[in-house]
């Protein structure tokens, strides 16, 4: 089973997305801030990370940069999830090292398409 690390500080979003991912056959582990995300990227060895960008403690951009800077975790694909559907947000996320980008509210089929595309490419 593919393991997804879902990084999201909003409880409702976390609950919703984790249930929908689980229903679609993913194993979901969760982090509530950027610091926890960095730690769990190492300890949980997820297949993919879904990263909210506006996070407490360490924000999603910085957390992505650190995950991508660590040789042990840099191969894990990161999909940025943000509520701001602005062009510059996508650019900013990609600059931080995110492999793909999607906006919230999440379209689950589209997100799964993106997850699959990234996993196929590996």
């Amino acid at each position: 089973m593919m393991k997804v690390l879902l990084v999201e500080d909003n409880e409702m979003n976390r609950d919703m997305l984790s249930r929908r991912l689980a229903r679609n056959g993913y194993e979901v582990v969760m982090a509530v801030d950027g610091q926890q995300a960095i730690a769990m990227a190492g300890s949980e060895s997820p297949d993919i990370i879904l990263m909210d960008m506006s996070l407490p403690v360490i924000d999603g951009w910085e957390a992505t940069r650190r995950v991508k800077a660590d040789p042990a975790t840099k191969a894990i694909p990161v999909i940025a999830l943000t509520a701001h559907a602005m062009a510059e947000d996508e650019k900013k996320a990609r600059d931080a090292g995110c492999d793909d980008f999607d906006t919230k509210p999440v379209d689950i089929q589209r997100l799964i398409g993106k997850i699959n595309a990234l996993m196929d490419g590996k």
Partner: protein
Amino acid sequence: MKRQLSSKEEHAFLRATIDNMQQGVALYDADHKLVTWNERFVEYLEMPEEFLGTDRTFSDYIRYLGARGEFGDNIDIEKELAKRLAVLGTSHSFERTRPDGMVMEVRRDPVPGGGFIAIYADITERKKQELALRKAMEDAESANKVKSSFLANMSHELRTPLNAIIGYSELLAEDAQDRGDKAALGDLEKISAAGKHLLGLINEILDLSKIEAGKMEVYLERLDLPKTIGDVKTIVDPMIAKNGNRLIIECPPDIGTLNTDLTKLKQCLINLLSNAAKFTKQGTVLLRLSRHTSEDGRDLVRFDVGDSGMGMTPEQVGRLFQAFTQADSSTTRNFGGTGLGLTITKHFVTMLGGTIDVVSAPGKGTTFSIVLPDREGGEGKTSLADDLGLAPEGVASSITVLIVDDDPAVHDVLSATLGREGYVLLHARDGAEALSIMRKSPPDIVTLDVQMPKIDGWSVLGIMKSEPALEHIPVIMLTIVDDRNLGFSLGASEFMTKPIDRTRLTALLRKLAPAKEDSTVLIVDDDADVRELVANTVRGAGMTPAQAANGREALGWLSNHQPPALVLLDLMMPEVDGFAFLEKVREFDSMKDVPVVVLTAKDLTDEERAFLAERTLLVLSKSGQPIGTLGAALSALAHRHHAGAAKAGQ
């Protein structure tokens, strides 16, 4: 024929004219003695009879006013007097506020044969109106800022609950499907569809308001077309399948790459493809890519999005790109959508330098075609060696110019023009990139955009001026100007912060002032200590300092002297401040080529920066018209730069 007036008659007429003027008038003879005046003068300045009746001079008058507190408390009246006497030989004017609050404009003009006339006008009302007008403008500007941040915040606040509505209704719908509860499933799908529609509206209204506010930015990158089309396909596949349509993609595998904004291109294609899917049932939707060359030899990529749907009448086509209109008002009911997608698509295509066209007939389907140029130079590439190696032979071939701008169009225009002139061009899309290029390989000249995301032009300039390796690079600030300012390019190429670093000032003088021994540097500052300090440095650099305590004195000096080699200008000064000086100095033709270096306290407000951006540093339009000005400015700066370097090397 005009009858010759007797001198007695002429005297009477002039007397009547003076007495009936709206302004106060006082006339002084060659010895500066007050010889005549009118009632307004007595009224405005509250002059007592006993003062006027006797043989008073201009100096007596100023001393009398000073003693009465007319110029405020704690002033050095002899200094005030000296300032006024210094400019009596020239026409000059200034404004001052009287102790009773009256704002007065004072104008003094020399009279042929000696003496001068002083005219006093009450401009209190005019000033009030100007203030009210300025306040109204400021209010309008701040209201606009509030609107922008309101939209951004509202978008975020609206999305959060929408997120829950869409997400949980979909969760429940999946549950209902598992249970086989068709009634609940239908209702839940309606909730989620309505939520998505609302979300689409919010996104598009936000996009449109950003476009209209001029805040939508373009990020150029070289993208792989087959991969981009693959991404688009993933997104539109579910929409295509919904009405039983088939998507045909014709993309030559060797179509290659395109330098454009990835997100905007994708959004345009998704908009067109989802429209096509929406208005076609059990048919085909076609996406075709092809390469072309424009008449002037530029590479173009064409995207055709065609469908076998219902098509449109010419009237419907005519209304297509207007906001909130669809083919007819029933369309929204039948097909959903916000009616903003095509408007936004058209705006995006225009921003990317392309065109969009549509061919349609009722019953024959519709084809939209987007043609985008393969833009050059916009990407923040750092192929320094390549650029240097490819430098064309030309007059300016030894001069490297770093263009720093977030607008790809500016890179395009400057590349075309300056490249032809033989300048070696480097490109940076933002401040951070510019600084990294400069540190690796310092260019001869930098053109710097004032408004950029993250680090703005002013900050880049500030950082450059704090690094020894970069501080000597001449900088041309580029900013958008209106027509009024278009022709105005006062070639100041520097600004300095206080406290003044004397080493840097000396270096600056060497760089900017021509290496002539009789060069004069005009120092305008109300602080005598600063003037003296700067004057010493100027003397030390082998030039002659001239001093003025404020903008008015400086203007007076300029009208009596040859233009100086350089003006060092303080901003905050009494009477006529640095900003007003910059406004007024435009009237001096001879000052056009004189560099002005602004000496300023560190913290400028945004408004002050904006003012300076328009007036002190070289002002150039991005519209491309005054490109000749830029070329001239560049060679002038390069000349100064090289002359300075040669001098420093002697």
